[in-house]
């Protein structure tokens, strides 16, 4: 008898005698246990579920192909992940104050949330910006606002992430210009710009131009940074928003990596060498409620990326092949009911991100289903990840869950299901044609609807919402953005426009438009324009004249 036969015999014996007797006709809590990707989770995993696993091929050692166990050899034993809380509200002055508060409490990186009018490239005075200024992030119109935002913060010492997409090239140029004024050269700058337009069409919906010219701007940024801002990550390929829009974990994994491959292909098409740009691609994932599913998602992401980068795109450098990512806990999982419970949800989600090997982490504030975070809530959120780091001991050994039958089985399963999605996307002609066919949008809308239906029919429980509800609960103190922020922002913009060299601005905008009609890299033109205090809105409007605008086909 082989070892396997022995094992099977013992397992059958256990199932019949021990498990069978213990259940003895009793009903389980549920007839089926399914995770958020609809994967059926059985009651017990055993060596049988990972019998095909060859350690070196599937897991490898941390910092080594296929990077399943982690991007770096010693992971958090050297240093913890970067604690990077996404923040931005009201005016540049107000947000600068919040940054100094967070840095003062031990935050190790900055992360800028921009006002919606900045995100869409409208000037504060545009009627489309009415009611929106500073409500969801910091209002930025010109370089002047960026100077105030980073006033007193040494940009050679801190890394900064900026969540901006359609106007990413403009905000990156402004950051380079602000650093220049602090006497810091571009090659010393560290940080990330989101600059991931594909997921905008798929999920977050803050687009400006159609996909094709948008892809050109992104490749321009990648090309420029590779040459002149070498420590910068010119793109953060994001699953976060795909998940927030309602996707499952597997869809988040598959669609994000598919977007990543699309950027790689676009950059190769431009003639860039994969090993020059791929080391500077970064990722951004969500961390939702199902603890093990999230951990497996990160591990599968590293393995899939490594395999494709090496085998399909022929990347040679280790840095091109290893996937590094930022994580934010799931905003959509926060409840407006009994909001303090969100602190516990965020703790579990943050822990999953750390056990999955994240490079940086944003833990949400408990009041975010109600408002932008108050100072108190933001501090608790930061403390949450500091407690995970300094008190729990989970960061002391690398990838501590590896080898778990369940974890390895689920990592494999999620990888297989993602590969299935890659095949479907390819059949549709690739990511951009699939966007035009509403493929991703429909998949996500279906998953979102199914999830809500499951909650409404008590197939899934959210404490305080459809289980253990309280009739009454106290609301915390809420942050409100003063309407005066709008007036202040419009006045400052008008003031800047009165005092700058408008003739020069016009010449630079004309030059930019001419360049946009050709194939030149546009970043130097944008950089020249922002240095003369040209507004985000003026640059976007000029580019719209050449590139046109995107219109979404509606689906419900």
């Amino acid at each position: 008898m082989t070892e396997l036969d022995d094992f099977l015999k013992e397992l059958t014996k256990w199932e019949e005698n021990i498990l069978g007797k213990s259940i003895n006709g009793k009903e389980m809590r549920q007839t089926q246990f399914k995770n958020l990707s609809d994967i059926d989770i059985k009651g017990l995993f055993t060596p049988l579920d990972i019998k095909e696993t060859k350690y070196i091929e599937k897991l490898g050692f941390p910092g080594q192909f296929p990077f399943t166990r982690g991007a770096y050899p010693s992971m958090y034993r050297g240093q913890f992940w970067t604690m990077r809380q996404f923040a931005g509200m009201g005016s540049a002055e107000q947000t600068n104050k919040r940054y100094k508060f967070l840095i003062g409490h031990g935050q190790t990186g900055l992360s800028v949330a921009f006002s919606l009018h900045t995100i869409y490239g409208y000037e504060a005075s545009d009627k489309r910006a009415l009611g929106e200024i500073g409500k969801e992030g910091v209002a930025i119109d010109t370089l002047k606002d960026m100077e105030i935002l980073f006033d007193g913060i040494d940009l050679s010492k801190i890394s900064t992430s900026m969540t901006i997409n359609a106007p990413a090239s403009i905000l990156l140029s402004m950051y380079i210009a602000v650093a220049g004024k602090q006497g810091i050269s571009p090659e010393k700058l560290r940080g990330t710009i989101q600059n991931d337009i594909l997921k905008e069409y798929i999920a977050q919906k803050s687009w400006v131009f159609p996909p094709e010219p948008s892809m050109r701007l992104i490749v321009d940024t990648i090309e420029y940074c590779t040459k002149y801002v070498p420590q910068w990550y010119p793109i953060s390929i994001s699953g976060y928003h795909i998940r927030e829009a309602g996707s499952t974990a597997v869809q988040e994994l598959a669609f994000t990596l598919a977007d990543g491959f699309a950027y790689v292909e676009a950059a190769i098409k431009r003639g860039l060498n994969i090993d020059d740009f791929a080391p500077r691609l970064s990722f951004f994932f969500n961390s939702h409620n199902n603890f093990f599913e999230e951990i497996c998602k990160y591990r599968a992401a590293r393995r899939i990326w490594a395999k494709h980068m090496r085998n399909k795109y022929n990347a040679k450098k280790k840095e091109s092949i290893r996937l590094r990512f930022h994580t934010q806990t799931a905003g959509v999982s926060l409840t407006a009911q009994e909001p303090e419970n969100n602190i516990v949800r965020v703790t579990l989600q943050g822990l999953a991100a750390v056990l999955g090997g994240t490079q940086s982490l944003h833990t949400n504030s408990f009041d975010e289903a109600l408002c932008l975070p108050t100072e108190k809530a933001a501090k608790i959120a930061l403390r949450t990840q500091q407690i995970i780091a300094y008190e729990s001991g989970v960061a002391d050994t690398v990838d501590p869950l590896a080898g778990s039958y369940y974890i390895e089985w689920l990592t494999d399963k999620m990888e297989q299901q993602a590969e299935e999605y890659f095949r479907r996307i390819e059949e549709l002609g690739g990511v951009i044609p699939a966007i035009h066919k509403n493929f991703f949008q429909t998949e996500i809308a279906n998953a979102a609807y199914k999830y809500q239906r499951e909650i409404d029919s008590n197939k899934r429980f959210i404490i305080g919402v459809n289980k253990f509800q309280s009739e009454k609960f106290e609301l915390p103190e809420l942050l409100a953005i003063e309407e005066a922020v709008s007036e202040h922002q419009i006045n400052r913009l008008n003031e800047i426009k009165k005092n700058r060299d408008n003739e020069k601005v016009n010449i630079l905008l004309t030059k930019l438009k001419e360049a946009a009609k050709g194939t030149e890299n546009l970043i130097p033109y944008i950089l020249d324009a922002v240095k003369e205090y040209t507004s985000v809105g003026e640059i976007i409007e000029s580019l719209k004249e050449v590139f046109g605008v995107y219109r979404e086909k509606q689906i419900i």
Partner: protein
Amino acid sequence: MNKTRRIKIIAAKPGLDGHDRGIKVVARALRDAGMEVIYTGLHQTPEDIVNAVIQEDPDVLALSLLSGAHNTLCPIIMEKLHEKNIDDVLVVVGGIIPRKDTSFLQKKGLTGFFGPGTPLQIIVDFIKSNLKR
């Protein structure tokens, strides 16, 4: 109203806010409950929304905002509807609307506020029992 007629709804996203998960889920639930739902899509100005109401003559206008622009944009929409003598359309709103803002919006003529975690059936029932015509 004539009970055999289908309830007609315009679901709209005012302003720049791109969070459309909620409104799409709600729109589908209303459709599954037998109502006719027209979704305007994102980034609608108050003028766009009022024009859609004039064209489609719905029983209900369902707005969704998560950006914090509700206190500015909802009253403008209500004023523009009133200017066109449209006073028999039920206007409901979903998204992130702090409790302290709902009384202000109620005074402006909005009824029905559905924040995060609202079961879909509650929205369906509310609409069915609060129609203005």
